[in-house]
């Protein structure tokens, strides 16, 4: 696998990378998130589970800046990022994927990966013409990184194919590859197995497991509890917009409230 180690440092026992304090969000009269507080340990692969409508994706959207919370704080290494624009959050190293595999269909797979990488000097109007040599050198290095990641995802032969031509599972790999390209401090994976054929589920699981070994901090929303059990620690259960419980998966399975809210009902 390509070098995807983030700059997080995966020290155990260090302060949490992300602390969410009492965030809430209502849509119309419906309270989707009702005072959720949680913390994500640095270097962990934290699972976020719960029944449909529990508020998982809303929480993830608020962390990523796509949804502005009605109240509360979202502290990334002490900095409150609640209410920042999505691209400002992304530039602080919080990168997300979406429930439906999201790629830029009319761009090649390689372009999809390169679009996920900071810095963005080449995007400035002036520096598109001036200082090209400097950012072009960086882009050459990024190109190598992208090819390396594609090789690890076994997508090298699709590098120059349009992303829209790939299967659902391959699109998911491209999406995760693009997120890895950004070397995120915090990677938010929203149901990475949704819509993925069984043949590609195992490689995606392997990929996520490998991310953990690189020290990257990951938050994973997933309905497939077996996968969560194999990969995640800790696991946070949400129900009706609140945190129901946090712990290891076997502890959660044994808890009657969790069983009632999610595992059974």
């Amino acid at each position, binding site marked *: 696998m390509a070098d995807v180690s983030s700059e997080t440092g995966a020290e155990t026992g260090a302060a949490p990378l992300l602390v969410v304090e009492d965030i809430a969000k209502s849509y119309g009269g419906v309270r989707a998130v009702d005072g959720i507080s949680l913390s994500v340990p640095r270097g962990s692969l934290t699972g976020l589970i719960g029944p449909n409508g529990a508020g998982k994706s809303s929480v993830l959207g608020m962390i*990523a*800046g*796509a949804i502005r919370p009605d109240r509360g704080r979202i502290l990334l290494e002490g900095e409150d990022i609640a209410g920042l*624009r*999505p*691209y400002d959050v*992304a*530039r602080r190293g919080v*990168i*997300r994927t*979406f429930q439906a595999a*999201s*790629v*830029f*269909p*009319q*761009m090649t797979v390689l*372009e999809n990966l*390169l*679009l*996920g990488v*900071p810095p*963005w*000097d*080449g*995007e*400035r*109007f002036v520096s*598109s013409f001036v200082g090209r040599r400097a*950012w072009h050198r960086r*882009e050459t290095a990024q190109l190598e990184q992208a090819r390396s990641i594609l090789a690890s995802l076994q997508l090298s032969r699709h590098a120059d194919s349009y992303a829209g031509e790939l299967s659902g599972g391959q699109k998911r790999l491209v999406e995760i590859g*693009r997120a890895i390209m*950004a070397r995120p401090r915090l990677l938010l994976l929203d149901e990475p197995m949704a819509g993925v054929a069984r043949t590609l589920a195992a490689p995606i699981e392997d990929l996520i497991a490998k991310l953990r070994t690189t020290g990257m901090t990951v938050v994973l929303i997933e309905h497939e509890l077996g996968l969560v059990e194999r990969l995640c620690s800790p696991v946070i259960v949400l129900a009706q917009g609140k945190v129901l419980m946090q712990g290891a998966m076997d502890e959660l399975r044994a808890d009657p409230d969790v069983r009632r809210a999610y595992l059974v009902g």
Partner: protein
Amino acid sequence: MGVLMSAIGFGIVTASILAVSSVGFTLQFSVTNVFNLSFGSVMTGTGFIAYALNTSGVSIWASMAIGALCGGVISVALNWLIFGRFIRHGISRFGMVIVTIATGLICDNTIQAFVGPTFYAYNAQPGKAFNLAGMLLTGQELIIIVIAAVMMTATHVGLKSTRLGAAMRGLSVNASLARACGVPTRRVVAVAWFASGVMAGIGSVALFLDTSTFAATTGSQFLIMVIAAAVLGGVGSAEGAVVGALVVGLATEITAAYWNPELKDVVAFVVLILVLLVRPQGMFSQLSSERTAVG
């Protein structure tokens, strides 16, 4: 044959002007999803800025360059002062079209209040005429064709080979995803408006040179041809706009040569209606109809 070649020559000049204008129109639409019907007014405004410079002794080509830069600034300012605010308030796509029409009317009438209902002409000589395979083209017309070719090539290379172009294409396909990837939406949108204004400026001066005289509403009248070319190619597609410009430019000039010059705009309308009937998405567009405006 002589009439046909002559008409094709004029058609290529018209297509060059249309190509620059419709690529500017469609590039901005593809990134922002704002169907900007005040584009013609920006053309008129920049045309008159170039006129002010030109009559002060500045050469027509320098006036075109400065006017184009002013067009970029005007375009960014319109987005910053008007369009962006409506977009951030969540205005519907139809509502946004009305806002751009209103903005265009305000601009046209303001220009008219200053310049009056009279016609103007640049202080520029058409230059020596060249006979190219039966097409009689003046030096001025050849320069317009070269400028359009350079602009189109630069746009194509810029969109396909630079990070800015990739960001624009990403934003045009999926703005939410682009934001989540860290694409600085506002900056890229501002660049799209600026580029659009620059092309409006170049297109307007080229148009006003081609038509010899112009007035406060010439840009807005030309807008229908710009839209016809953009729709024919597929709104949002720069390559499509160039092809659309060629078709509309040649069709209108051949009609003028063989039938009646007054029917030029009618041909543009007929092309527009036929395309909307037969292939509403145009020839090259790949944009989703579900997109929302980006400010």
